[in-house]
């Protein structure tokens, strides 16, 4: 059981469609506790990613090639903190996935590398009301699922489920990193837009594997 380059491409295309679909929701979440550009920025970034994928003459050979294309394009086109954060996450994930297929351990490595990238760039830890609060439980759930003998699709499903729960759990938190931290306690009671987009992206990874 494994996921391949076609899965990675499907994941990216699904991500672009999902972000477009949830653009206004992400804008509204970010408007409540940030600068209101998260949905618009990510939508612009993923549209650019799809345009680059469409322009490729041949499909990439490795999963890492697909993720690297996502990384560099998001960095160049997003224009907000999500650009360098997701850019670094996909870049680290790309370095961890220099192969045509991934088994369950490979999927875990991908998710962990993404988390490492977010943490390295944003210097955030859990409980600060950021993307890290969705990525961390996702990585933990992925490890558990893989250790229990789960397939790549099952590992991704577990990660997606944990990311969604982690995102929801940011609602009562007071932000101490990122733009929302300027609001202090007024940031409590709102879902963090970065954690929400992380949950959406990981759900697409799982959906692509299940398809």
């Amino acid at each position, binding site marked *: 059981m494994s996921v391949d380059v076609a899965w990675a491409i499907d994941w990216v295309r699904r991500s672009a469609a999902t972000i477009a679909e949830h653009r206004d929701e992400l804008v509204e979440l970010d408007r409540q506790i940030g*600068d209101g550009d998260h949905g618009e920025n990510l939508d612009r970034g993923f549209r650019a990613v799809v345009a680059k994928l469409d322009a490729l003459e041949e499909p990439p050979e490795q999963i890492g090639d697909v993720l690297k294309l996502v990384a560099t394009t998001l*960095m*160049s086109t997003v*224009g907000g903190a999500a*650009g*360098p954060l997701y850019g670094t996450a996909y870049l680290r994930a790309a370095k961890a996935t220099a192969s045509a297929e991934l088994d369950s351990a490979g999927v875990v490595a991908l998710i962990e590398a993404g988390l490492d990238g977010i943490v390295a*760039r944003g210097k955030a830890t859990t409980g600060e009301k950021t993307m890290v609060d969705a990525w961390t439980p996702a990585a933990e759930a992925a490890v558990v699922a893989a250790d229990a003998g789960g397939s790549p699709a099952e590992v991704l499903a577990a990660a997606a489920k944990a990311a969604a729960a982690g995102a929801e759990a940011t609602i009562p938190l007071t932000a101490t990193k990122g733009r929302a931290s300027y609001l202090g306690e007024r940031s409590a009671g709102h879902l963090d837009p970065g954690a929400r987009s992380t949950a959406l992206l990981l759900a697409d990874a799982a959906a692509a594997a299940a398809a």
Partner: protein
Amino acid sequence: MSQPDREPARVALVLVSHSRDLAAGAVELAGQMAPGVLLIPVGGTPDGQLGTDFDGIEHAFAQATADGRSAVVLMDLGSAVLTAESVLDLADDDLVARVRLADAPFVEGAVAAAVTAHGGADLDAVLAAAEGAGRMYPVEGAATPDAPADAADGVVRETRTLLNPMGLHARPAAVISRMLAAYDAKVTVNGVSAASVLALMKLGATQGTELRIEAEGPQAAEAVKVFVTEVERGFGEI
């Protein structure tokens, strides 16, 4: 002005802001006090919205470090920092070795760094000037005691009255700092370093204020002499 010819500044500045206007304004402000220093604004997204521009920063870093220069980078808010760091992550080692990201207030850091770069300082000194620019008020007790002049202690002292109608504002403060960078001497005015534009401005010296100029070092006498000359001619403003 009576200062020796100088090599072009070795250190350029890159000012990264979410706002095109803010980056351009900071360049304008810092540039007024440091002609000849390469100041590169990178503000907003390529389509003129608020945000940060990865490719723009990458291009600015290349331009700033061309011709053997190094560069200090000032950034305004979180994602400007994250994007600048990401650019460095992907840059080649030679460029990375010559670029420093300053943990400094955007405007004050830019002004302090620009003036220091204009004085011919190296990368570390320009970075230190930017990062030391955060304090709004002189450190308590930093002012020199009113000790009597004593030629035997090696300190050259002069006192002159400030003639400028607008007081010791940004332009004359920059003139002093720039002028003195050419001399091997440690100069203070009323207890604050004359090498620091911001410290000079924060003296709040108005027209008629007595300036107590003190200098130490091999060229202390020369430094005090040019300083006094500039004070007496009102820094060209009277």
